[in-house]
């Protein structure tokens, strides 16, 4: 074994290395005073680092952190979703927003407001209150019904599971007027066998239209299913320019 190798093996020899390496290094050290000297100096460095004092944090650090977390927890839970009704080219929509992002979109099927409100509360685990549609929300929807696309920064899917988020983001990559299969979405997110689970995510999509689950169809190209009925799915696709 050469000196250079022995040099580089120093830290390994102190910890987890094979017995044969250890023996070879020991043999070298016995015959090589300069390497022995070097090892002792390295040991000195390691020892001086190991024996540095370990000062404790101030005694209220943990308390401060726990209090800070508690305040975030309160704030997070308290931020409500404001639910409002908006007239659009495809009819009336229920739209929920949290701060300046849209967190819920559903077609108004005539279900009473209170029913919709409490359903969203359960689905997104957040208080839902009623309110007016602000200007930015109207503009965002106007733009959506012109381009059939929405900017990623105005939608909020944070309350969903990572799998749901991934599936919805993949669906959002399908260009307007085109369709892809459930298994296409599944393979996009690296879970090629999860087509069925993708179907469930699409069925529970809290941001209808904006996350275009209507562009996801079965492997035969059949529209398959839609929360607001197959007629609505076909109508949306036609409006976007789908010629299937």
């Amino acid at each position: 074994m050469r000196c250079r190798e022995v040099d580089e093996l120093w830290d390994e020899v102190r910890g987890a290395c094979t017995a044969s390496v250890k023996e070879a290094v020991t043999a070298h050290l016995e015959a090589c005073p300069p390497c022995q000297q070097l090892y002792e100096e390295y040991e000195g460095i390691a020892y001086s680092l190991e024996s540095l004092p370990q000062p404790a944090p101030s005694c209220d650090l943990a308390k401060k952190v726990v209090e800070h977390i508690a305040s975030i927890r309160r704030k997070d839970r308290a931020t409500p979703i404001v639910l409002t009704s908006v007239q659009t080219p495809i009819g009336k929509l229920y739209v929920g927003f949290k701060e300046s992002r849209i967190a819920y979109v559903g077609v108004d099927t005539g279900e009473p407001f209170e029913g919709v409100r409490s359903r969203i509360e359960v689905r997104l685990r957040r208080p839902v209150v009623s309110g007016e549609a602000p200007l930015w929300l109207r503009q965002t929807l106007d733009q959506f019904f012109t381009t059939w696309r929405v900017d990623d920064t105005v939608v909020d899917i944070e309350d969903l599971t990572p799998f749901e988020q991934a599936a919805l983001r993949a669906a959002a990559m399908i260009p307007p007027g085109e369709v892809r299969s459930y298994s296409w979405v599944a393979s996009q997110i690296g879970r090629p066998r999860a087509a069925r689970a993708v179907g469930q995510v699409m069925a529970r999509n809290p941001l209808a239209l904006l996350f275009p689950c209507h562009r996801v169809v079965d492997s035969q190209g059949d529209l398959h299913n839609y929360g607001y009925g197959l007629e609505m799915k076909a109508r949306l696709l036609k409006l976007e320019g789908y010629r299937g």
Partner: protein
Amino acid sequence: MPPAVQQPPQPPSARKAGEAVPSVDTFDHIVDDYQRRLYGFALRMTGNREDAEEIVQDAFVRAYRALGKMSLEQRSELRLQPWLYTITLNVTRNRLRSKRPANVALDALADPDALLRESNEGPPRPETIVEQNAEVALVEKALLQLPMHLRAAATLRFIEGRSHPEIAEILHQPIGTVKSHVHRAVRILRRILGPQIGRIAPEGAPLHALS
């Protein structure tokens, strides 16, 4: 001679039997369990008590938020300790980067002597660490002169007592890189500190008489 039997790699079981899956609901316990360790690490990385405390707070907040977004499956596979070290290191990096844009130590990698030349104006000063004796102060100062990636490797290895595979996990680096960083750190520290550091002299014996 029979071939050396290597220890079979331990299955990277995320937690000990009976240990709870980390969640936002048990987060207070996580803070209690790890605040001291993470503080020690941040302190060695920055050399400043106030910075270290703020880093730890920030790291816990990030960890809390990240945990809240993970599924049960992800959380049960999570290895809490290395993950918390990684977050703390990232916060430290961002903080040090924004504090002093020019890291003198980076260029010094190939040339350990540059570190010696820089030593008088070295970046973060360990002034707030209680000086217990002259040697402790020297070692603390030398550690802070290392470029950040070498300082992280040396701190995790010798002060935090982590193994090479654990450090590789924390730093998201191959084990070979970790080993070479640890080694480089020790070599530079040896250049800065001189050959006598850490070697306890018997009463009355001149230092150079040691072997």
